[in-house]
């Protein structure tokens, strides 16, 4: 017997893009996902512009003209920000590479108290990502701001 399918009026309730930015009291990893996306998009945009700039390396005059353009003003600071983004993206990417194949996580077990949520078992990797990123960015900032003196 075929029942007619009901089509009630519903109101859409997706969190949408703001759901990526903040959605409630979740742990770090949910927001690392958004950060990974933002840094990835930033680096991609930079890559496309970078290809256009470095493509000028075949001719000396064009090269020197384009180097003049990009080493002035706020652009080098923008490049430094891209460096920070790339470092975070790469380190978090290593963490994701491992967890996406099930490494760093807890083994499946019956959810009897006290059991470890896998997200908590790999939380040390999240902290490690931030610490190593801070070290590398710190060294880069030292090089950039003090040595090269921009």
């Amino acid at each position, binding site marked *: 017997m075929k029942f007619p399918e009901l089509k009630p009026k519903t109101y859409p309730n997706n969190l949408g*893009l703001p759901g990526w930015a903040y959605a409630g009291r979740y742990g770090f990893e949910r927001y690392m996902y958004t950060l990974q*996306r933002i840094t*990835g*998009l930033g*680096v*991609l945009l930079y*890559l*496309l512009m970078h*290809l*256009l700039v*470095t*493509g000028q*390396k*075949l001719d*000396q005059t064009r*090269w*020197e003209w384009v*180097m003049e353009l990009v*080493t002035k003003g706020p652009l080098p600071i923008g490049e430094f920000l891209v*460096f920070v983004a*790339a470092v975070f993206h*790469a380190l978090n*990417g*290593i963490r994701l*590479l491992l967890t*996406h194949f099930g490494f760093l996580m807890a083994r499946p077990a019956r959810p009897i108290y006290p059991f470890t949520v896998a997200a908590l078992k790999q939380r040390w990797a999240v902290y490690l990502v931030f610490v190593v990123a801070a070290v590398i960015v710190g060294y*880069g900032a030292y*090089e950039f701001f003090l*040595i*090269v003196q921009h």
Partner: protein
Amino acid sequence: MRESTLWMLHLLAGAVMLVVLGIHFGVMHTGELFGIPSEEVLTFASVDARSGMSFYLVVYLILLAAGLYHGLYGLRSIIFEISFIGPGVRKAINFILVLGGWGFFFYGAYAIIAGFVV
């Protein structure tokens, strides 16, 4: 291509980039490690010299391919997740990204190979 193949290539490109981008950062930002004084690394002479070395030819070609693939696949992921789009629009986005990717790749590869040959 199957989605899982595309994804595995995305992870592979990411892992490969850890190495080649590390080399690129090393050369550009800490020139001493690669025998280039850091003030000179952006001069035309230095760039020209590096262009002629086969080591950098290989490294930069791999970096270009891996970087473009990884980035554009990520962009495709984001677009596919943001909205409900039908299979026709999906095919169109695939086509645009593939076209754009190959375009940038040929542009970059030309610069790299021409710099090596000349």
